[in-house]
């Protein structure tokens, strides 16, 4: 078991023939991901990386029956690409692209929720189920099939948590980067729900950062709904208030969403908090030993 993606996933790539789409599709195929085709308007009928190219998602759905899509198109086209995939009946859409306007995401989020489509991202590293399928830009080689479910708002920070759980031999059931934007397609809570139901997952690592109140909401949810141990780390403990730290999400406005607030809320709700980035793996080991 795992969440969201596995060997059965039939993936199409939107923005397949662009430089990012090409680079990451190559690596995903190498990892063993079943890419069944790609979409680039105007290039339909051609072949790319040994896979068929289609003009539209609809055409791809008719011909190769994909059940997931990954999006690498430029930010200004993401709204249309996500809507197109959702309209064509794709139920899992992963948008890697960074820099999608927030106003676009308000419409997108409302739409995908209404039609029951699971959107991950934008501005995220994607989803991986180690040993089965890699739908994203994460380095495959640091992962190991195993028992830890990882959820994170950040890319390279996720890789740290992955590397540490791999080095200690736990491995991961699945890893999901939900992205750092103000309006993400999926929240920590959406993913916590899936990991709670997944039999392979024994513990969950949730990597958060300053800004917003997603971690606080997740903490409340964990208290009432999650039976598995949750280990968390919050980045940005030393970030000064009011300064924007790269991610659109990582800004502390009006004193809300500070690391201290988040950490105390998480602890209050029974989450095990690693004090330091380098201690995530050790914290997992400590918690699993006592459980």
């Amino acid at each position: 078991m795992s969440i969201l993606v596995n060997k059965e996933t039939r993936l199409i790539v939107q923005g397949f023939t662009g430089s990012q789409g090409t680079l990451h599709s190559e690596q995903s195929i190498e990892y063993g991901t079943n890419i069944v085709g790609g979409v680039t308007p105007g290039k339909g009928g051609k072949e790319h990386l040994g896979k068929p190219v289609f003009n539209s998602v609809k055409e791809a759905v008719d011909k190769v029956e994909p059940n997931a899509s990954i999006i690498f198109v430029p930010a200004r086209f993401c709204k249309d690409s996500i809507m197109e995939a959702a309209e064509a009946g794709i139920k899992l859409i992963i948008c890697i692209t960074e820099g999608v306007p927030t106003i676009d995401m308000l419409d997108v989020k409302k739409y995908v929720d209404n039609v029951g489509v699971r959107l991950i991202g934008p501005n995220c590293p994607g989803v991986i189920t180690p040993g089965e399928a890699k739908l994203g830009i994460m380095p495959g080689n640091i992962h190991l099939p195993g028992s830890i479910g990882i959820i994170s708002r950040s890319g390279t920070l996720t890789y740290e948590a992955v590397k540490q759980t791999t080095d200690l031999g736990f491995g991961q059931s699945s890893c999901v980067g939900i992205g750092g934007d103000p309006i993400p397609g999926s929240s920590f809570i959406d993913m916590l729900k899936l990991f709670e139901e997944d039999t392979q997952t024994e513990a969950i690592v949730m990597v958060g950062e300053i800004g917003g109140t997603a971690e606080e909401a997740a903490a409340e949810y964990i208290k009432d709904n999650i039976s598995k141990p949750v280990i968390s780390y919050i980045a940005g403990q030393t970030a000064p208030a009011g300064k924007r730290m790269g991610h659109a999400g990582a800004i502390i406005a009006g004193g809300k969403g500070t690391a201290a607030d988040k950490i105390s809320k998480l602890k209050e709700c029974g989450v095990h908090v690693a004090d330091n980035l380098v201690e995530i793996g050790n914290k997992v080991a400590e918690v699993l030993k006592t459980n």
Partner: protein
Amino acid sequence: MNLHEYQGKLLFAEYNLPVSKGKVIFDAKNAVDACNEIGGTKWVVKAQVHAGGRGKAGGVELIDSPEEAEAFAKRWLGKKLVTYQTDKEGQLVNSILIEECTNISKELYLSAVIDRDSQKIVFIGSSEGGVNIEEVATNSPEKIIYQAVEFKDKSLPDHAKNIANVLKLNDEQTNQFIPMIDNLLRLFVEKDLSLLEINPLVINSSGDLHCLDAKVNIDSNALFRQPELLEMHDETQEDPREAEAAKNDLSYVSLDGNIGCMVNGAGLAMGTMDTIKFFGGNPANFLDVGGTATQERVAKAFKIILKDPNVKVVLVNIFGGIVRCDVIAKGIIAAIKEVDIKVPVVVRLEGNNADVGAKILSKANIKIESINSLSDAAKKAVELAK
């Protein structure tokens, strides 16, 4: 991206929102003409900077002769205004807004933001305007309304009425307020705003609603489709190093410590700063070098970090994902040679081909401390910074 008050008010006027008659000047010699053109016998002169708290800092004055406007402009243009919202250097004043004087009978508060929790645009209104709204929120939360709204939603007039009730508007003012909310929401969506604040929104002596201030922030991700707003960008209001980094597509924020940081990914960059602090050091900056840490980008990042004279050591922390660590290592060495760095550099490479990368770094004929563990690398940087 922030706008100046006068730019925000141009947008307000475009959307039929009630703003004062005014003129912006960039040169003191135009002050008298501007006052005469506006007319009347009393004016307000306002120094334009990207920060609040201008009134208390002397950046806003009520005057009753055009000569005073000229004197005010001479006093402030080219100078820096320090308010409680700026750093201790202050913000450069390069324009002055002169407006006709408004007689105020009541000050209210109105703003709109994108709310992450409800995933909607939310209007925030209060009957207590012109003051620090955070204080009102803490001390008398019942005086504040948070109203989620949706563009082109039929219930928008009802939502506007909910806000009007909390603002204690009379029937006539409520009739003005309903289209005002509609216009503000259109402005917010069509111009890709991330924040809009009118503090204060006032009721003037004739009993009409009037926007006395305008704070507007635009979603930087949407500037590609807002070319006329992009032209309003005032680089002088930003930290020069941050502005230069932005030009190079690097994300940089200057801080007050002495350990320069170069990291790939915003989350890991914050995590690295935290780790430095954890071991007793102080980061000099936040810098996200991005997903592709090429020699060119690394060199630019080094240059920006080293413009800060406080930097005693640079800690490079790269998690090589798609780009292999051996490629990154070569890029770092070339960049260090290119920039001719005098301070010690501690490099931690992890991920794809990390061992090969470390070997390349240790064999390079330059002063680099290559350390594989992040805690050890951070400790080393803290020690070298002492």
